């Protein structure tokens, strides 16, 4: 067994075995999660070193090559997402260890959280490593079902309704995706992405298939106008679950969209389709930000902010897809969007974890209750502010690098509209994040009850994530070069 096969096996199977073990030994959830983190992190490190030194990794499982066999592929893009997921999951599980610890009394949420969280991780890794549209379907379904269960984990009326609403969108989305995959198979006899790239575009049904796949994935990524399910679902779940749902889960369906439009079917992308996707992203950005301004609960603000931030991921399509793909600015736009996806994953997860700690301290997340919380939770508020810097796109954060790359690309491409939207997005993000931060630093009311203490060790996890998002901006050259590895048709341009 080669080192690369070992690494891939660890990354894929450690979370799945962990989930099984956590199901069998319900009370040992935190210990099993720790073992899983160590095993998966080891696999991830090995994989990153292999990709960086030897380039993209291919593995035909059992020696069966495509189109019959199942291919695992890990290029720089997959490596970046896997590493970010490992980091974010590690921090989330560290914070979750206390509220979901198996105590003497049996609680349903403590019993179900660990298997679900580890399954979610396994599904994400399976998606990031798949090189075949049908495997992506299976991974996406596993991810969706686990995410729906996590939304409803507390079993309250509102959260169950949020989970059901999410489920209805997700069911429709997966059927559309499956229909698209069936049409592609009927026309080309394969669903392997590399083989599809040579064949797609010849059959008349291809554009229908692409539309079905895109529509299905857009519903799962909560792209405007399919965003209605996201805010109640993400704000209703317990904070560690929200952090996974908001930071990681929508990135998986976006990742599949990237693989589809940039690798499987690059020739299908007409400028109309690309403009439509970018335009919907712009709508999502404005709409989500305005609604975030209106909320008076911290978790709802963060959830609406996710709608907005996911929106401008879609600017990648007009800036780097279709005819732009061969242009010199495509690499910048493409990398900018990936940077945004990765830094948003870290910052948003950090924010939800901070919100969870604030809820633990004051018992609720209504904004007025947050007055003066900085005195009780200085590290948490600091982490929240750092994450906010990334979401606003201020230097030197990863969010700034992302915006800078996308803005230079949009001016180079002669489409300054997207740059304008990015500036507007930053301003709106600053506006809706200012309110909770200003309250956190305000003087507390005299009759306000004293917040409960939260241990420093647990406050460190969201801080580490927020710092990682900032570091992604300061040390952006290495990850920039890394995610280009194995990118098809990469005309690598530097950060000029």
């Amino acid at each position: 067994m080669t080192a690369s096969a070992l690494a891939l096996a660890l990354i894929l199977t450690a979370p799945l075995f962990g989930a099984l073990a956590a199901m069998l030994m319900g009370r040992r959830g935190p210990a099993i999660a720790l073992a899983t983190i160590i095993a998966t992190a080891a696999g991830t490190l090995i994989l990153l070193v292999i990709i960086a030194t030897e380039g993209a990794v291919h593995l035909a499982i059992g020696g069966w090559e495509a189109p019959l066999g199942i291919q695992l592929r890990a290029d720089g893009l997959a490596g970046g997402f896997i590493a970010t997921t490992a980091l974010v999951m590690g921090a989330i599980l560290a914070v979750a260890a206390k509220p979901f610890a198996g105590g003497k009394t049996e609680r349903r949420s403590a019993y179900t959280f660990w298997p679900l969280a580890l399954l979610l991780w396994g599904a994400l890794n399976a998606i990031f490593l798949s090189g075949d549209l049908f495997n992506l379907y299976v991974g996406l379904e596993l991810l969706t079902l686990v995410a729906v269960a996590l939304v409803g984990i507390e079993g309250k009326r509102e959260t169950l309704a949020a989970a059901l609403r999410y489920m209805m969108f997700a069911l429709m989305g997966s059927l559309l995706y499956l229909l698209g995959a069936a049409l592609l198979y009927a026309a080309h006899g394969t669903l392997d992405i590399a083989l599809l790239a040579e064949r797609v575009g010849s059959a008349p049904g291809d554009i229908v298939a692409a539309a079905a796949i895109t529509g299905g994935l857009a519903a799962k990524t909560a792209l405007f106008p399919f965003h209605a399910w996201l805010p109640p679902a993400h704000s209703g779940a317990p904070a560690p679950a929200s952090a996974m749902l908001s930071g990681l889960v929508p990135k998986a369906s976006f990742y599949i969209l990237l693989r589809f439009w940039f690798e499987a079917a690059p020739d299908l992308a007409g400028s109309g389709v690309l403009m439509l996707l970018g335009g919907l992203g712009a709508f999502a950005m404005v709409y989500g930000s305005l609604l975030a301004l209106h909320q008076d609960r911290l978790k709802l603000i963060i959830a609406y902010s996710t709608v907005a931030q996911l929106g401008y991921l879609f600017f990648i399509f007009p800036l780097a897809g279709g005819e732009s793909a061969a242009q010199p600015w495509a690499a910048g736009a493409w990398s900018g969007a990936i940077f945004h996806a990765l830094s948003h994953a870290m910052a948003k997860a950090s924010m939800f974890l901070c919100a969870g700690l604030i809820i633990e301290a004051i018992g609720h997340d209504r904004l007025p209750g947050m007055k003066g919380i900085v005195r009780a939770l200085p590290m948490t508020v600091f982490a929240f502010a750092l994450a906010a810097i990334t979401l606003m796109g201020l230097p030197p954060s990863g969010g700034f690098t992302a915006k800078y790359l996308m803005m230079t690309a949009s001016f180079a491409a002669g489409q300054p509209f997207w740059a304008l939207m990015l500036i507007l997005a930053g301003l709106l993000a600053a506006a809706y994040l200012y309110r909770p931060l200003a309250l956190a630093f305000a003087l507390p009311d005299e009759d306000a009850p004293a917040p409960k203490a939260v241990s420093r060790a647990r406050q460190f996890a969201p801080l580490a994530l927020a710092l990682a998002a900032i570091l992604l901006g300061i040390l952006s050259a290495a990850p920039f070069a890394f995610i280009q590895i194995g990118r098809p048709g990469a005309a690598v341009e530097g950060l000029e």
Partner: protein
Amino acid sequence: MVLSASLLYGLCGAALIGLGLYGFVVHRRLIRRVLAFNVIGSGIFLLFGAAAYRDPVAGSDPVPQAMIITGIVVALSATALALALIVAHARLARSDALPEDDRSGDPDEGRP
């Protein structure tokens, strides 16, 4: 023109997808929407299976059949989770529709 078997199955699949879509959009009660989801799913599987039989000499292509079986397993687990959530929600909310859809003048008659 003779209606070949695979064309007939394909058309049936398309009809099922259309019927299911109609049901999914029109109904407010969640169990009916889950049923509609299953009707659409069956239509897609039928379409997929029909597409596998393209060459009368070589017979049908087994790969889509393997994918259909996987798809059925996925649809089954999704249905099970959806039903469990619907039951849990109905116990607490005394309603089998989502709050925003739950209003009088419901096109579906009767209560469970």
